[in-house]
């Protein structure tokens, strides 16, 4: 009986191709819209997280000035900068650190042969590569001697290599920075755009003493990057850093910090929070199309009630049992709805894959949203395909036949 009802249902689907197609279309549009929107939104969130992670893991950034309060940039003025002695103190007095890298950045024009390029030159130590999760694509990092003496050697980012050297091999070549020249000892592996749109590869890295002497003209350290070995230690390290620096900067109990320790996790949270809100917004918009799709299904099913009621009357009159008729209509609704749902999921997968390529965000198959939108629209399809049939099958055959 189940098999013959199944055949009957398939015959009905084929017989009413237009109606079947419209029912499926409603489900397909609803399902694929919701899935695509949510998948892309999640991809965007993931992309932001990846970018922040590319800054380095378990990273604390120490800058002068108070934390992003008051007028923009206002906090930094007047606050004394750090020194290499501060960096040494941190390295010696705080445990559980993977790297402590001082930083001083200056903008400069770099020239090689006939090409020139405006970039930022960062003076630091080998710890910089650990803290920032940088990999060396070619060449080497600084030697101890080069760091101590502040020799003019440098590593360049992918953007500089491309702009100045094109297809040539730059390691061992010399690079002119403002009015002095330095030897290129290595190339950094590309990291791409940072979260704020800054090109992380547009950089030249030099021993900090070289930058202090040749570009800055003082012994200041503008910021310190601290990489913590274990994520669990971040809170402790932050507290110890704060009290150590307060002591070294001779701040009394009544004084506010004139520096700040920024946890990159906080940046991650703030940014992914924003994209998550956007994802929810997109999902809400897409839910409307799911709803409209659902209403479309209802319409088509309800409009065909008159015709179907007569049909049910005919079937009952020639000896079909109520349950046979119901089973047929139920199977028809299930077949149509799940077909629509499956096509919708397929279409959404294709659309998400294509759009995530275009938008340059990672694609992940989200089981939850696929299941949810499939069940929702298929549920509507089954409900509104089945309910009118159920009512009609309860009628006396003669009443069903007379139905106008």
């Amino acid at each position, binding site marked *: 009986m189940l098999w013959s009802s199944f055949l009957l249902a398939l015959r009905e689907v084929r017989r*009413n191709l237009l109606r079947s197609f419209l029912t499926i279309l409603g489900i397909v549009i609803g399902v694929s819209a919701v899935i695509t929107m949510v998948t892309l939104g999640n991809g965007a969130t993931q992309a932001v997280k990846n970018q922040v992670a590319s800054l380095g893991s378990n990273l604390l950034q120490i800058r002068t000035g108070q934390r992003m309060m008051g007028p923009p940039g206002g906090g930094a003025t007047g606050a004394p900068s750090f020194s290499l002695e501060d960096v040494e103190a941190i390295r010696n007095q705080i445990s559980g650190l993977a790297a402590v890298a001082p930083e001083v950045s200056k903008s400069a024009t770099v020239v090689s042969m006939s090409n020139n390029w405006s970039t930022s030159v960062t003076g630091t130590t080998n710890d910089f590569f650990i803290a920032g999760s940088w990999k060396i694509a070619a060449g080497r990092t600084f030697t101890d001697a080069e760091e101590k003496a502040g020799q003019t050697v440098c590593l360049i980012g992918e953007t500089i290599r491309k702009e100045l050297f094109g297809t040539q091999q730059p390691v061992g070549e010399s690079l002119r920075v403002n009015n002095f020249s330095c030897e290129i000892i290595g190339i950094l592996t590309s990291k791409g755009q940072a979260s704020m749109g800054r090109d992380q590869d547009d950089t030249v890295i030099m021993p900090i003493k070289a930058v202090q002497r040749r570009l800055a003209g003082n012994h200041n350290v503008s910021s310190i990057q601290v990489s913590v070995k274990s994520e669990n230690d971040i809170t402790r390290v932050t507290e110890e850093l704060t009290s150590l620096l307060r002591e070294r900067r001779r701040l009394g109990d009544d004084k506010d910090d004139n520096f700040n320790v920024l946890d990159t996790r906080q940046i991650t949270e703030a940014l992914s929070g924003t994209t998550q809100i956007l994802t929810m917004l997109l999902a809400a918009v897409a839910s409307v199309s799911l709803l409209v799709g659902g209403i479309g299904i209802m319409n088509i099913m309800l409009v065909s009630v008159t*015709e179907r009621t007569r049909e049910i009357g005919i079937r009952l009159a*020639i000896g079909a049992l109520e349950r046979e008729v119901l089973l047929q209509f139920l199977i028809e609704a299930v077949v149509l709805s799940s077909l629509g749902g499956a096509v919708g999921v397929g279409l959404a997968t294709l659309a998400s894959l294509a759009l995530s390529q275009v938008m340059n965000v990672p694609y992940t198959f989200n089981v939850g949203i696929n299941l949810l939108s499939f069940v929702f629209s298929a549920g509507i399809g089954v409900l509104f395909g089945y309910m009118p049939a159920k009512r009609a099958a309860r009628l006396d055959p003669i009443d069903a036949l007379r139905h106008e």
Partner: protein
Amino acid sequence: MSTLIELRDITKIYGQGQASFKALHGVNMSIEQGDFVAIMGPSGSGKSTAMNILGCLDVPTDGEYLFSDVHVEALSRNERALLRRHYLGFVFQGFNLLARTSAQENVELPLLYRGESSLDRHAAAEAALRQVGLEGWGHHTPAELSGGQQQRVAIARAIVTNPTILLADEPTGNLDTKTSNEIMALLTSLNEDKGITVLMVTHEPDMAEYAKRIIHFVDGNIDSDIRNRAIDSKRSVA
């Protein structure tokens, strides 16, 4: 001839209380196997109600209905459906074919519910279409057929299961005179050649003349029940 149908004191009341309407007032009737009965009467005389009860589509409020000695009034909805499936064939005034479905598939429909194989269904439907003179029209949908042809398809659907009795509710109601006479000739041949008992409701005296027996309903009662002498004598001569 053996008795196929017997109605004993059949009453049918529609609605309840003040709004109730008594359509049949204790009808008694018996129909022999192989008979051709026309039920006539003005609108509201109860002829359609009687037909629905005879066709096991509706149940009487009171009284007994014996179909081959089975008490139909005591059967459940599903049992009546099975009775219709195996012993009854229906022809309606409005044809009631499935739209956008070929004549062949329409005729096969009752066999689907009897669980017959697709090969058997196909052969039986073709035979039934041949009997009603529509050989080769099986692939046409109702919209492509004339009224007379549609009613022939409906008759083919009714006889494809080899029913004991064929119930026709105003089978010529939507047809012109010429086509009506063709349909009546078809019903007559089914009755005479295949021995199918035919029960027909009509309000046209010309059509009733094809029947062997004519029953008149007035106000929910049988007013007259006569043998059609003309046709009997005509047949005995032939």
